[in-house]
């Protein structure tokens, strides 16, 4: 796994450590996994926001909440027995992706203020978008990403290739130097 990024998320109080310690001897690994899942919320939120391609922050946060709660509940009910945090993460990403597939049937266009790459994302089909984001944005391996979207590895690869081909050079600084400089200047202006 290329990056399980360390996330700078400061929770209020010391709930995480306290809960793990408190439940340590009795609940052990399961509690640890559940707490670990809580810490995945920022990454899931990033994925969800991108999956929704700029349409509706409320919806994307709601998807994260539903996914975390349903996976958490299934682990507590022993329907799911993830061996480690990575397994639980995969379940959470899978739940989020499945819910998003249902909720994002008639997607809204992203607002014009979003960067071009977001508009490019919105043009992709849902499957292609999910495959691209899991690998590119979330840094998941092909095997994990394939499990999340519930497709064989070859299918995932095909979607990833299609997504990258159709996203093309959208939103990237063009190779042409002159227009490149102008584009860059229009939204990043050096002060000082």
């Amino acid at each position: 796994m290329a990056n399980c990024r360390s996330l700078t998320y400061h929770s209020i109080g010391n709930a995480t450590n306290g809960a793990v310690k408190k439940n340590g001897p009795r609940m052990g690994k399961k509690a640890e996994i559940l707490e670990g899942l809580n810490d995945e919320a920022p990454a899931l939120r990033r994925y969800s926001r991108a999956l929704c391609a700029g349409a509706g922050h409320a919806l994307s946060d709601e998807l994260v909440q539903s996914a975390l709660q349903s996976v958490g509940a299934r682990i507590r009910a022993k329907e799911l027995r993830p061996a480690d945090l990575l397994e639980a993460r995969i379940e959470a990403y899978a739940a989020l992706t499945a819910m998003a597939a249902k909720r994002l049937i008639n997607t809204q266009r992203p607002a014009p203020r979003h960067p071009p790459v977001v508009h490019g994302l919105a043009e992709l089909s849902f499957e292609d978008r999910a495959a691209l984001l899991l690998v590119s944005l979330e840094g998941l391996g092909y095997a994990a990403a394939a499990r999340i979207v519930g497709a064989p590895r070859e299918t995932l690869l095909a979607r990833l290739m299609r997504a990258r081909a159709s996203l093309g050079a959208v939103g990237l600084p063009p190779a042409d130097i002159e227009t490149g400089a102008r584009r860059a200047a229009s939204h990043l202006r050096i002060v000082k």
Partner: protein
Amino acid sequence: MSSSGTIGDADLHALVDGELDAERRRKVEDHLLSHPNDAALVEGWRRQNAALRAAFEPVALEMLPLSLKDAATRTSGPQQAPIETGAIHWGRPGASRPTLRLDEIRASRRRQAALTTIVTLLAGAAVAGLAALVVAGRNDAPRAPVTAAPAQSYAGRAGLAYATYVSDARPVEVDISRRGELVAWLDERVGFSRPPDLAALGLRLIGGRVTPGLAAPAGLLIYERADGPRVALYFERAEASVAPLAPRAGRDVTAIEWRAGGFAFVLVGRLPQEDMQAAAERAATAVAAAEGEKR
């Protein structure tokens, strides 16, 4: 994955995604040296990745809304209506809870209670502080900033933000050294993120923050002159119905307001009136130029 002899598209993708073992990676990298077209493809995909991360990484760095704190360990099932993003819950979100986890629930209640208490106290302090300013303003108080401006105008808001933050030991939330983050943040919350360049007037941008506005979150950029005084540029998405206001001056704080591109801008500071006017004109020109380029 193809056989070891030929290098296919799948290998190029796998290279970008770090899915190759060391030996295979060396082979593909060698292949790229002699095939500039494939190298360009790989470079393009890497830039796509970078663009995606630049667009969405700030989301992961934001403070989590309450609805997502401890979502996996909360006992309320998905059948319960999700808690509104950012809402503070005073009552009981879920009625039936297993007694097993009572201690955890209590802990989280305590945390929430502490949070809401702090928020309430801060709000009360802000109201009291404002009232004190208004009352004290009539007298010969040594510092009587923005007394006449109630917080019901953009200039009033700007004055309040100026009085709160500019003299603070930590005036900005995001320092200019993290410029990309600042710009993304302001764009996300306020919708405007092109800080005007006032360097020609000796005003150096030191950073910015999001601050409460009249109707929506507002942005506050703080500039500093080499000899100390600071000037703040306040901006908020403007309601179309409100007519632009004339420049307005407090006792020793000058606030100059203007509108551009659907935003209200207010420049606040203690510099002499003519310096403020020059800075405001320059900022207005820069903002208008940025708007023009955007179109």
